[in-house]
């Protein structure tokens, strides 16, 4: 088997992988993209709705249009993209290649393909939580789909999954699909959300549910899915404290259930490569260079943490690739301070920062709050506060800190640990 040598190998040809590959190539590195689908673009291609590109291009683009703006330059730059090629293993380079890491992939046309590379960019994206992740009682009939699968069926494969639909969870993909299914002739009977607030963004509640008079049941639980061969109904009850108000349960006859109950970064490959994960995000722990705990392995996009906006995936992928390029050039690494999620913060990326450099923190709140403040403290001392007009768990907070906003760590003895940067919301 032939081993191919590259400076950097990008795993995944979606929004993160494309932007990272382009940035690496601009810096002069030899780079290749591995993509398991037969085309580049990733999940953007099934997102035919608009709302992409407002930050990046100042335009309101559809998913395919946004993807094309990266796929075309990748092709023009002659960056090799292996399509229909699934990466099965990332490991240490044994001996026969020029790199430090070896990546093995299965290609439908070329069989087993092996790379020797000095840097790996993890850009595999995320996958949907499914029925097994949320424990819904009842039978196991046909007609239960994740929202993203339904999106693929309707927008790419050209099939409609059912006629009358109940959507469990109010994530953005579920809301987008409520509108989409209505427009292809389904009746969307309800969106049922366990929390007291929607988990998708407010704009999607307005234009996907309210426009079509689709009821949103907040603080409600689907207690049971009924049906022998095919879904026949769901039972829904309001929450009552920590339990449910069983006496107020009602039944909605339907033939299809969509689940829009969150996304999980897809990290089986990372884990097998020895990359340690961050509990808050489900993605790899990364430092200020977006480098994981394994030197030379970087991560960006939804495999690192689930984003709301593709524009920020692009931004993050570029930053990640710029740091990977510096790593490849052998530039010295700055001293970094560990970053931790403080009060009211569910998760934060990156998990270390370099005080002398601009850092874009991306975090999620645990609380819903107006006029909140973001507080950055170093070693227990508050160093910065920023006003946040409105925070809620479903909306990612992006907080850029300019060079010098975090003071450099004081000189200390050799064995003394650097102070922790803690980011919290009040």
């Amino acid at each position, binding site marked *: 088997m*032939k*081993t*191919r*040598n*590259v400076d950097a190998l990008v795993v995944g040809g979606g929004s993160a992988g494309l932007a990272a590959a382009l940035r690496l190539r601009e810096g002069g590195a*030899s780079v*290749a*993209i591995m993509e398991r689908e*037969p*085309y*580049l673009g990733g999940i953007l*291609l099934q997102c*035919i*709705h*608009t*709302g992409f590109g*407002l930050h990046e291009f100042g335009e*309101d683009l*559809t998913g*395919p*249009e946004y993807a*094309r703006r990266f*796929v075309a330059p*990748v*092709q023009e730059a*002659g*960056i*090799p*993209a*292996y*399509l*229909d*090629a699934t990466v099965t293993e990332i490991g240490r380079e044994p001996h026969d290649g020029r790199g430090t890491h070896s990546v093995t992939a299965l*290609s*439908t*046309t*070329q069989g087993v393909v092996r790379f020797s590379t000095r840097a790996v960019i993890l850009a595999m994206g995320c996958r949907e939580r499914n029925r097994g992740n949320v424990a819904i009682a009842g039978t196991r009939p046909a007609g239960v789909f994740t929202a993203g699968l339904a999106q693929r069926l*309707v*927008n*790419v*494969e*050209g099939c409609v999954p059912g006629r009358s639909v109940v959507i469990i969870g109010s994530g953005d993909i579920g809301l987008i699909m409520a509108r989409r299914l*209505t*427009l*292809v*002739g389904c009746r969307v009977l309800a969106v049922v959300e366990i929390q007291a607030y929607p988990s998708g*963004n*407010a*704009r999607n*509640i*307005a*234009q996907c549910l*309210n*426009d*079509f*008079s689709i009821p949103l049941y907040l603080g409600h639980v689907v207690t049971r899915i009924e049906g022998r061969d095919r879904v026949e109904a769901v039972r829904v009850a309001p929450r009552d404290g920590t339990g449910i108000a069983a006496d107020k349960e009602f039944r909605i006859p339907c033939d299809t259930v969509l689940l829009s109950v969150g996304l999980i970064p897809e990290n089986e490959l990372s884990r097998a490569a020895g990359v340690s994960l961050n509990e808050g995000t489900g993605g790899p722990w990364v430092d200020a260079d977006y480098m994981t705990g394994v030197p030379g392995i970087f991560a960006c996009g939804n495999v690192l943490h689930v984003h*709301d*906006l593709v524009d920020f995936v692009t931004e993050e992928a570029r930053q990640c690739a710029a740091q990977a390029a510096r790593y490849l050039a052998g530039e010295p690494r700055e001293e970094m301070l560990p970053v931790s999620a403080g009060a009211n913060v569910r998760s934060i990326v990156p998990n270390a920062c370099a005080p002398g450099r601009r850092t874009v923190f991306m975090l999620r709140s645990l609380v819903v709050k107006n006029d909140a403040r973001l507080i950055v403290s170093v070693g227990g001392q508050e160093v910065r506060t920023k006003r946040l007009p*409105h925070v809620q768990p479903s909306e990612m907070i992006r907080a850029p800190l300019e060079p010098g906003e975090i003071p450099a760590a004081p000189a200390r003895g050799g064995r003394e640990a650097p102070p922790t940067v803690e980011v919290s919301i009040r």
Partner: protein
Amino acid sequence: MTAETGSPRPGAAMERELVCIACPLGCRMTVSSRIRDGGVEVTVSGNRCARGEAYGKEEMLAPRRILTAVVPTDSALFPCAPVRTDRPIRRELLGELASELYRRRVSLPVEEGQVFMEDYDGARVVFTRTLPPDEIPAVGEAGAEPEG
């Protein structure tokens, strides 16, 4: 598909809480309208940009939306060609245009930006993805083999 309000009565001020859909920031806005000098005066607050104000006014008077959909193709590999209106159309026409598009069929190839329907409520329906005609796709077609 119904708008949640009727037209404002003469002299009466009408106020609505809206979430701006001009971009994913989703500003929470208050839009109020009153009849004045024979016309309707609409004021918007809570918006963070000019697009928000324009959206608030339009939403109060005659809501419009971009429609995105797919058109069935003659291809086995790419059975759906995604399309959009190049500008917003009246909201009450979304369903009608969606079913009209679903009844049609297109032969591949199509190019992003290619016009599929010339004038629907003042908007053009254009393809949003370039799709090739059916053939077995060549692996690695996006680029050349890397050097060994």
